[in-house]
């Protein structure tokens, strides 16, 4: 690479970091493609709609990014999402508790499950992929048992407005605001705090991090708490928007969250990733889905397309990162 190209590269890197910039370009290109084909694609209404639909996934994917950067996975986020919803629903309807108390209890239940994940991995040192695969099933089972497999419906106006239904200025749905707020929180946490540096260090070189005095196990445990917190928040948004919870909600959410992180440039081996990248990764997945719907494509074809997008994104990422080395 000659000097000029390198200087240009660092200029771009200064804006976004090379990887994030690549995902941004991909998101823009996909948007351009769909807006040429269907004029309704690039309207504020549609963009906000995309963001609203993907807010829950995005919130979880950003927390998942922190965890993957630290070198672990959490496959149980869908289960935690269901348990939080079901616990909140049961306490609010069957026991008639105040929705705020019920929601707080639901979130606490979710956090407890995240704590258990962290504890399981810290004490047994089993691979988190396997550990959370099992807790995924256990948590899902808990949601099924508690609810007896039945959906629970609500009628709670203000709460629902605050988390799911309201639209700011008649335009901006509140889930998008929650998405943005969580995004800022996750960004600051991962990229602007010492905790974030420790997360990167833990995933980059665990032994070196231990030898630099970093308590890597605690870092991972906090990251597990974070994914459970995100799942809880997403569950409240879903509950408020749909006015109902089901014990089967969030099935497959874990893999979508990992996919969004990976499209955004997060390395499965840990130590590499960014919140901005994951935001665009989530957005790309939603773009493709919505675009295909607007095109009137068969719902079954959509899944296949999203799969292709994931493969493509990973190939591009690998190319970019090997060239960088």
């Amino acid at each position: 690479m000659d000097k000029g190209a390198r200087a240009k590269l660092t200029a771009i890197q200064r804006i976004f970091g090379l990887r994030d910039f690549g995902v941004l370009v991909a998101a823009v290109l996909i948007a351009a493609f769909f807006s040429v084909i269907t004029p309704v694609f690039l309207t504020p209404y549609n963009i906000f709609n995309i963001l609203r639909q993907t807010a829950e996934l995005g919130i979880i994917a950003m927390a998942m990014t922190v965890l993957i950067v630290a070198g672990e996975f959490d496959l149980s986020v869908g289960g935690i999402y269901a348990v939080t919803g079901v616990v909140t629903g049961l306490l609010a309807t069957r026991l008639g508790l105040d929705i705020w108390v019920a929601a707080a209890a639901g979130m606490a239940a979710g956090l407890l499950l995240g704590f258990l994940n962290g504890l399981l991995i810290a004490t047994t040192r089993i691979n988190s992929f396997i550990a959370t695969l099992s807790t995924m099933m256990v948590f899902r089972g808990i949601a099924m048992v508690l609810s007896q497999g039945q959906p629970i419906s609500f009628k709670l106006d203000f709460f629902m407005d605050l988390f799911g239904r309201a639209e700011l200025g008649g335009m901006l749905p509140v889930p998008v605001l929650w998405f943005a707020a969580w995004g800022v929180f996750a960004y600051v946490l991962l990229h602007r705090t010492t905790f974030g540096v420790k997360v990167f260090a833990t995933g980059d070189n665990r032994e070196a991090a231990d030898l630099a005095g970093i308590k890597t196990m605690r870092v991972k445990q906090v990251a597990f708490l974070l994914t459970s917190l995100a799942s809880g928040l997403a569950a409240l948004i879903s509950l408020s928007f749909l006015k109902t919870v089901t014990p089967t909600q969030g099935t497959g959410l874990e893999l979508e969250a990992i996919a969004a992180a990976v499209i955004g440039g997060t390395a499965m081996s840990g130590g590499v990733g960014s919140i901005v990248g994951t935001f665009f990764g989530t957005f790309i997945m939603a773009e493709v889905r919505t675009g295909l719907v607007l095109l009137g494509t068969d719902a079954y074809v959509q899944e296949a397309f999203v799969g292709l997008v994931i493969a493509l994104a990973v190939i591009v990422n690998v190319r970019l990162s090997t060239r960088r080395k």
Partner: protein
Amino acid sequence: MAEPPFLAVENVSKAFGPTRALDSVSLAVEKGTVFGLAGENGAGKSTLIKVLCGVHAPDSGRVTLDGRPHHPRDPEEAERAGIAVFHQEIPVCPDLSIAANVFLGPAMPRRGIAPDWKRMNARCVELYRTLLGEDIDPERLVKGCTAAEKQLALLVRVLSRSARLVILDEPTTALTPPEVARLFGIIQHLKEQGITFLFVSHMLEELVQLSDAIAVLRDGRNVGMLRKGEFEVQRLSELIAGRTLSQTARRSALRQGTPKVEVRGLGLPGEFRDVSFKVQQGEILGIAGLQGSGRSAVVRALFGAPPAATGEILVDGRPTAIRKPADAMAAGIGYVPEDRNALGIFHEMDVKLNVCMAGIDRFSRRGFLDARNLRGIAGHMCDDLSIKMQGVDAPIRSLSGGNQQKVLISRWLALKPSLLLMSEPTRGVDVGAKEEIVGLILGLSAEGYTFVISSSELEELILVSNRILVMNRGRVSRELEAGEATKDKLILAATT
């Protein structure tokens, strides 16, 4: 000589860039003998082995095997010519039986598409009997075998493929003394059957015991050949070491009084025991010893990674419990590990975070990063240590090995430690960087920094240390003052 030697190496040279790994080396090995090869790390032993088994092609010179020219283009061709190498690490399939490990490969006996276990087991038992004179159960899984049994399985494996020259590269490091005796007995037995051995070892006594002739390599040259009867451990260690370096007269009188660190009866099962020493402020204590002698483990124990099981550590005269790295750091101890890539560098990060990692909490404000402060600290450290780089925001991977090593040293200096532990401080860096790092250590000790350095580079240890402990099989076998330490004394204390 009437009969040409079985293996003749004539004026073989091999250079890697400016380094002459082999410089006109000549050897002659008779059939059915054990030929010992001695030398320090980097003396050229491994290169010679790699030339013989086809990994490297020599730049010049001739090799003949059994009268025919031997210039293999790849390891397979060398194997076909009858050369087998035995490495320190034993490659086996632990979940297969001994017989399967012996026959694994295209020549495995089979019936149709399935392995013919019956025939394989029978042939395996037969091979063990004729080659080693031992009986075995061919169906035992290799993972249940001791290191010695695994080695024997490999020996049978290569011999069953008609190996005529077996290169033993440090075969005894993983063995207990009775196992070594058994292996030597088997080698004697095989010698009588006409198998020739090239025996590489750091253990001089073993070389003397087993070999019929010994060549000593130093700096890529054959500096001496000894025949059976002329062997003497003392003479060998002198040959290996070469001329002893003149001491640099830099040492100032050490402050006496309470030692900076005192270690009493430190022990860790399987690694080391009864290790005691004192280090004064500003002193550089070197620890010498072979790989596996426990020297690296002692240094790691001082950092709590992993901690010692028994014994006491006193810092500034106070008993200090060091159970984990954070404890050591709280006591003002830093540690530069021996394996830079696996244990030190954060490969995906930039220079400044690599410098600041150990003190990241201290250099930040209430948990939030202060990029300006981090840049300032990293820039300052990098200037002090003259680290060559594009800037503190450059990725760590863009730095050379020597500069990466200096970044690791600066990671601890940034914390102003009172004791700096180092393992192999100059491993994997080029000659120029080596000198710079040595100079850096000497300069820091003059400023009052205290060091404990474990290294396999003896010249370097002699150059920097005020005192050198020599470890041998987990114990301190000798303690030498700066004035009296010479390479051959160290080698002698480490290997006998």
